[in-house]
C-alpha cells in the first residue's frame, strides 16, 4: 500500500509541476498554452536520451530543463507578437509536431515503440528505498519551484505579468514590452514543464510518444481550472483532485462494478468532465481562487 501511495504521489507531484507551469503562463500571464505537453515531452526525451547515452542523470535533467525552455523561445517570439490568441492554436500544433518527431525520427528516439532502459533516479539504491528517495527528491524540487514562483508572483515581474493579463494595451502604453514579458513567462513555464518531463523519464524508465498526447495538456488545464487559476496553492489542490479522480476510478470495480479497461477509461473522462462542469457552475473561479473572493474570470 505504501508503495502504491508513493507511486501515485510521484505522478501527482509531476503533475503539480506541470500545473505550476501552466499557472504561471495562464493564471498569471493569460497565455493560452494548449501545447504544454510538448515541453513535458521534450524534457522527458532529452533527459532520457542523454542519460541513456551515458550522461549523469542530474546533468541530463538540467539539459532537459534548458532544452524545453529553449524550445519555447522561438514559439513565443513567433506567436506572441501577433494579436489575439494565436499561441493557443500554434502551441497545440507544435505539441503534435513534437510528438510526431518522437514517433518518426527513430534514429534518435527509437520511434513509436518508445525508449526503454532510461536509467532510474537512485537506480543503485535498494528496491523499497529507491522510490522513496525519488519521491523525496521530487517533493523537494516541487517545494523549491513553488517557493520561487511565489516570490516571483509577488515581485514587480509578477505584477507586470498580471497587468499584461488584465490589459495588454494599457501595459504597453505604460512602458512594458509586452512580447518580451510574455515570452519570458512562456520560457520559464516551459522549463518547469521540462523538469517535470525529466522526472517522469527517470521514474518510469520507459518513455514513448503515446505518453505525450494532448490529453496531458488538457488534464493539466482541468487541474488549474478546478483549483483556481492564478493561485499556486489552488492549482496544487486541483492537481490532487484530478489525480484522485483519475486514479480513484481504478477502485470502482471493488465497489461491484464490472468494467473492463476501456470502459474504465471512458468512465474516467465522464467523471472528470462532470467535475469540471460542476466546478464551472458552482465555483467558476476554482476552489481556491486568486484574491480570496470567488471572482469570475472567464476561461
Amino acid at each position, binding site marked *: 500500500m505504501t508503495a502504491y501511495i508513493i507511486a501515485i504521489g510521484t505522478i501527482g507531484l509531476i503533475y503539480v509541476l506541470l500545473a505550476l507551469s501552466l499557472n504561471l503562463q495562464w493564471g498569471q500571464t493569460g497565455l493560452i498554452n494548449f501545447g504544454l505537453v510538448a515541453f513535458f515531452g521534450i524534457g522527458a526525451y532529452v533527459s532520457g536520451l542523454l542519460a541513456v547515452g551515458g550522461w549523469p542523470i542530474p546533468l541530463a535533467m538540467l539539459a532537459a530543463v534548458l532544452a524545453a525552455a529553449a524550445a519555447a523561445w522561438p514559439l513565443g517570439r513567433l506567436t506572441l507578437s501577433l494579436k489575439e490568441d494565436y499561441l493557443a492554436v500554434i502551441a497545440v500544433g507544435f505539441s503534435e509536431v513534437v510528438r510526431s518527431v518522437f514517433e518518426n525520427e527513430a534514429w534518435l528516439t527509437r520511434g513509436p515503440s518508445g525508449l526503454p532502459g532510461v536509467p532510474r533516479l537512485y537506480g543503485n539504491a535498494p528496491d523499497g528505498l529507491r522510490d522513496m528517495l525519488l519521491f523525496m527528491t521530487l517533493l523537494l524540487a516541487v517545494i523549491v519551484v513553488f517557493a520561487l514562483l511565489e516570490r*516571483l508572483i509577488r*515581485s*514587480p515581474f509578477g505584477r507586470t505579468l*498580471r497587468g499584461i493579463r488584465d*490589459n495588454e494595451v494599457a501595459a504597453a502604453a505604460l512602458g512594458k514590452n509586452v512580447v518580451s514579458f510574455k515570452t519570458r513567462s512562456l520560457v520559464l513555464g516551459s522549463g518547469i514543464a521540462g523538469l517535470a518531463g525529466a522526472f517522469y523519464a527517470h521514474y518510469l524508465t520507459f518513455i514513448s510518444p503515446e505518453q505525450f498526447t494532448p490529453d496531458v495538456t488538457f488534464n493539466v488545464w482541468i487541474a488549474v481550472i478546478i483549483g483556481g487559476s492564478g493561485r499556486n496553492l489552488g492549482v496544487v489542490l486541483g492537481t490532487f483532485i484530478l489525480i484522485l479522480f483519475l486514479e480513484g476510478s481504478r477502485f470502482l470495480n471493488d465497489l461491484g462494478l464490472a468494467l473492463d479497461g476501456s470502459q474504465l477509461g471512458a468512465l474516467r473522462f465522464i467523471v472528470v468532465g462532470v467535475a469540471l462542469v460542476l466546478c464551472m457552475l458552482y465555483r467558476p473561479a476554482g476552489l481556491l481562487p486568486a484574491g480570496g473572493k470567488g*471572482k469570475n474570470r472567464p476561461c
Partner: protein
Amino acid sequence: MLKVTDIKRSFGGLHVLRGISLTAQPGEILGIIGPNGAGKSTLFSVISGFIPPSGGQVELQGQSILRLRPDQVAARGMVRTFQVPREFGDMTVLDNLRVAGSSAHADTIMSGMLGGRKAREAEAELKLKAERMLERLNLTAVAGNQASALSGGQKKLLELGRALMVNPRVLLIDEPFAGVAPALRDQLVQHLKALRDEGLCLLIVEHDIEAIMELSDRICVLVEGSILIEGTPAQVQNDRRVLDAYLGAEPA
C-alpha cells in the same frame, strides 16, 4: 517638446488624418477638440506608437519617435491614457500604480525570484511612491479595492495616476471627463492644472467644451482629419467655422 509634422493616416481609402502638424511645450495644455470621427483618438494612437502613420514625422525632444513601439515611446517620457479606461481590472488600485511605476529593466525573473536587499528597497520605495500618488488623487480609501469595481470617475483618476507613475514629460489624455460625475470633474480639472504648473506638457482630447476652454492654453480644432483652426480658447470660441463644424449650421 513634442513636434508633430504633417501626419497622415488612411485606412483603406479612408483618410482619417490628412496632414496634421502641431507642437506642444512644457507647462502647456493643448486642447484638441472636434466632432466625432474627426481623427482625435487616431492622432493619439499615431503619436504614441500604437498605429504607424502613412506619412509625416513625430519628434519628442528633437528626436524622431516614429518607429518606436508604444512601450519605447513611454520610456522616452510620453504616456497616453485611453478614452475608455483600461484599468488592470483584477488587480488592486495600489497594484495598478505599482505595475506602472516599476522599471522595466529591473523587472527580471532573476531579481523577482532571488532579489535581496536591493530589490526589497526598490519595492519599498515604489510602494511609497504609489501611496503618495493615491493620496494626491484622493484614492487612498480604495487602495485595496479591485480596480474593475471603481466608478467611472475613479477609473479616470487611476488612469491618470498610473500614467504619472511612469514620470512622463508629455501626457496624452483621451477624454478625461467622459463618464465622470460632476463632483470628480472639478477635482480632475484641478489635477490637470496642477500638472501643467509643474511643467508637464499635456495634450487633451475632450468633448466637454466648457471644461476644455477653461483648461487649455491653446486649442486645436480637428475636422475630418485636418486642423481647422488653432488658437487661444477665446479665438476658437468666436470662430464661425468652429460653430459650423460642430452644429452643422448653414454655410457662411
